[in-house]
């Protein structure tokens, strides 16, 4: 199909045309990474489809279908749903704080009881924040996005959920929401002056916060990260074992299903947070490099899609989703390689776990929708809906 053909009136709205506009390179890379995840879960499950590999693949199949369905949805509907989604997510985060509605596990209240099941509002909020910010900036001028009193709106959009999620406490998710928001503000054109001031303030205030503002276990994690050998059988154990798994993989790896660190359970959380270490142990530097290249490809293609969108909403929504994804990858990668504290951020698409998979794939649905509907015109100005 040529460019002239697609510019024909009504042509872009045809389902068959839309299908061709899906970025199949991106879809293929996503499938490769998720498939690698399934393969690794098969391996660390002791060469068995249960308990993780089969479920992972089934979930991915369903999420992939969902992504394709979402990519068919016009960007206009995304635009109109932006604030409602954010509002509902914020409401649910607030409801968690009411005793009796929140479900507490492992010392943190992250789940909301809705009768038949429990949902994790912080995951919905990851999409919600991106949508709301994109929606707000869509109506904002370059000046307002750069240096203006109205910046308190995006700061509020980010700040409210950040505080609620951090209070659960779920430092990993709060950080992701905060950093994603910051990335969107940055890409929307935040003034360098503000950026400089925030960085300077951060340098001044983070150490006191670590010492006095954090929960004991959170501080312990951070301190252990700074000196993992100090506590090799406690929290430092995770970092040490992960590094051993990575390092002993060498250039070519120990072979599929032969990683002693992961197979013999030295590697903690091998099916979730530390799955990347298992890949590196069994497939070596070449395998893990290839995997990182796939992640880099996904990020760059997504950013390219964002830059091609005709609407500011589409651009910021796509780049926001990409920022979330990139942050997941970078934080998890740094964590398993001993470059960052253990914060419980999984490797997207690779790690076992349905919620993150769903969030990420909804996000890619949005990216795909942006690509498919890149020519769509959106209403201008500050409409509420």
């Amino acid at each position, binding site marked *: 199909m040529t460019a002239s053909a697609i510019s024909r009136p009504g042509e872009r709205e045809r389902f068959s045309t839309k299908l061709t506009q899906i970025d199949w390179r991106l879809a293929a890379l996503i499938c490769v990474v998720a498939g690698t995840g399934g393969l690794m879960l098969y391996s660390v499950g002791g060469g068995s489809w249960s308990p993780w590999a089969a479920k992972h693949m089934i979930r991915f199949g369903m999420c992939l279908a969902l992504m394709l369905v979402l990519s068919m949805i016009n960007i206009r509907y995304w635009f109109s749903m932006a604030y409602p989604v954010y509002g509902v997510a914020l409401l649910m985060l607030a409801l968690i704080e009411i005793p009796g509605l929140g479900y507490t596990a492992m010392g943190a209240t992250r789940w909301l009881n809705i009768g038949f099941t429990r949902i994790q509002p912080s995951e919905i909020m990851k999409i919600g924040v991106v949508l709301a910010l994109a929606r707000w900036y869509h109506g904002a001028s370059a000046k307002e996005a750069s240096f203006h009193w109205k910046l308190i709106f995006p700061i509020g959009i980010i700040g409210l959920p950040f505080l609620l999620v951090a209070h659960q406490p779920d430092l990993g998710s709060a950080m992701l929401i905060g950093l994603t928001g910051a990335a969107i503000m940055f890409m929307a054109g935040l003034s360098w002056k503000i950026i400089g001031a925030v960085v300077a303030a951060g340098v001044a205030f983070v150490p006191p916060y670590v010492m006095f503002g954090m929960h004991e276990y959170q501080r312990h994690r951070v301190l252990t990260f700074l000196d993992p050998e100090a506590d090799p059988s406690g929290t430092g154990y995770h970092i040490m*074992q992960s590094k051993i798994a990575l390092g002993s993989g060498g250039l070519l790896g120990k072979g599929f299903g032969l990683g*002693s660190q992961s197979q013999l359970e030295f590697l903690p959380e091998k099916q979730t947070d530390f799955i990347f270490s298992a890949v590196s142990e069994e497939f070596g530097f070449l395998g893990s490099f290839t995997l990182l290249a796939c992640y880099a490809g996904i990020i760059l293609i997504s950013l390219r899609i964002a830059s091609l969108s005709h609407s500011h909403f589409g651009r910021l929504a796509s780049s926001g989703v990409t920022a979330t994804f990139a942050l997941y990858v*970078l934080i998890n990668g740094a964590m398993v390689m001993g470059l960052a504290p253990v914060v419980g951020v999984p490797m997207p698409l690779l790690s076992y776990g349905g919620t993150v998979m769903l969030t990420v794939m909804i996000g890619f649905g949005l990216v795909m929708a942006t690509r498919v509907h890149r020519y769509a015109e959106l209403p201008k100005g500050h409409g509420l809906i």
Partner: protein
Amino acid sequence: MSEPSIFFSDVNERQGSFLRRTFVFGGFSGLGILALVGRLAQLQIVQAQEYATLSSQNQFNFRMVPPPRGVIKDRNGVVIAGNRPSFRVLVVRDETKDLDQTLDLLGQLLPDTMDRRRAIIREVNAASKFNPVPVKSDLTWEEFAKVNQYAPELPGVMADMNEARYYPFGGAFAHVIGYVAKVSDRDVQAIRDKGQQPPALLFNPSFRIGRQGIEKALDQDLRGQAGGNRVEVDARGRVVAEDIGGSRPAVQGQEVILTLDADIQNRALEVFGEESGSCVVMDVRNGDILAMVSSPSFDPNLFVSGIPSKAYRALADYERRPLLDKALGGTFAPGSTFKPVVGLAAMKRGWDPSRRVVCNGSFFLGRRFACLGRHGAQDLRGAIKNSCNVYFMTIATEFGPDAIAETARDLGFGQTFDIGLTGQKAGLVPDREWRRRNPVRGDGKWYPGETPSYGIGQGALNVNALQLAVYTSRIANGRQAVMPRLIKSIGGVEQKAGTPFGELPYDPQMLKVLRDGMEAVTDVGGTGFRNSQLGLGAVRMAGKTGTAQAQNYGAGSRKGAGRPWAQKDHNLFIAYAPTDNPRYAVSVIVQHGGLGGGTAGAPRAREVMKVALLKDPDIRARIEHAGFEAPEDAGVREAEARGEPIDAPAVDVAAPPPEVTQ
């Protein structure tokens, strides 16, 4: 339509800014991923070797394999301390979900673990994390099968098979060989006190340390070298697989061969029955100890897996003291068995053995010392035969305590022997010097009144059964100062006796006189005649009876009938055979065995001697060649004996003056 809120130029500015910023963001992401790749390269390529080592340290564990303990055999290769397979149950603390609950379940399968529950919990908690602690050994096959069957419900409990020390003859060798037991904190502390590092093997729960006897004395030789199993473990320390190539086998401890003969040893314990006492059999030619028994004995197997305290108390509190090695650690007055020593001491100083001394039933030195008969005029041979107190009191007072003490030491008394065992008591050979250092009532002078009782083996004189056997061997050997030997070889290396034999500093003719006298003891009319007949034809046994007074009788009966056991006299007998070419010497002490060495000591010596002789191929050939059949011969001898008036001379007691034995 109202005024547009955003102007076209503004839209372009927004878009341009977005593109620039997105480019920067993409750059940051790319850099981040590049940084991760760099870190990966550092870990997986630069430091790969280092982490590979760490990984295999994680993956592989060296598990110590305790070595099988060296086997102890008798002179004929019969195993007297070996190892046998034992099924046992072990508990690993960190694999049990709840130790209490696990022990509850285990208690249903093995009820006796409930009784030791506290001790088990203490031991399990004391052990290191993944070290299995045996909670019960020697399971029956049914119990072993039951534990395995319920294994899924018992996390942290496993059943396996190992080697346990086993003493097939039970009590017969209990005192000589001793036993092994669990390593105690005191054992570890003892090594630390010496400034040494206790070997890791000591902390292995299935390791046993030699606690008594040969097991203790040769512990280092018997221990062997621990091996190691390279096993693959998971993060919880559970063994996933064994790596055969990386394993080092354990080296079994050295084999120790003793000079003992299991048949003689068993018979020696058997003849004691319930009686308390000791018996030593020696080869008079080379000093090999063929048997060394202390009775009553105990089952050393009880100690291997830890003796229940009730059973231990029963052994420790029994008045006949089964835990004491009476052959080496029990000393008694030798009584009349000492008389040949006095005779030899006199002969060395010029006493003519054929000179006669008249016995009219009493000896006077400040007071009256009784003899058990009126023996009339006797020479030395006759005096030994009749065990005449008057004769030996006479020569003892003539030559004095120092002369007796010198000869006693020459013949093996008052000393311990280098036979590889500790716990020997040297006993006491008194002389004037000793009295000076141990004065009675502040007076270090040797009173003449002490000498007559010394002459009949009483007073302060104290000997053990091994010394009696050495003494008998030296008389029987006739030339050499035979030294006893117990350990024949260690790991195939022949062991020499501790001290080389020297010549006895006595004229062989003098020793011949003593042997003549001892032959007469077991011949018609001698004090030991009735119970010393071997029934082996020309192969005959010579000996000497002895009674050691356990306490003063006052006006009571001397016979001992009706007296409590602990007040009866000690009953002794020494013997050698064959008379014409001595090979074996036997000493028997029956603690509180009653009056007269011929009654309790002699029959036991005879039975033991018989086994020793019949096991000797030369002597056996001689007996068989002569065509004698043992039972027939015994019948003839006994019939002969019945016609003889043996009652009076067969009784043999030395009566010491009360002021000395106090």
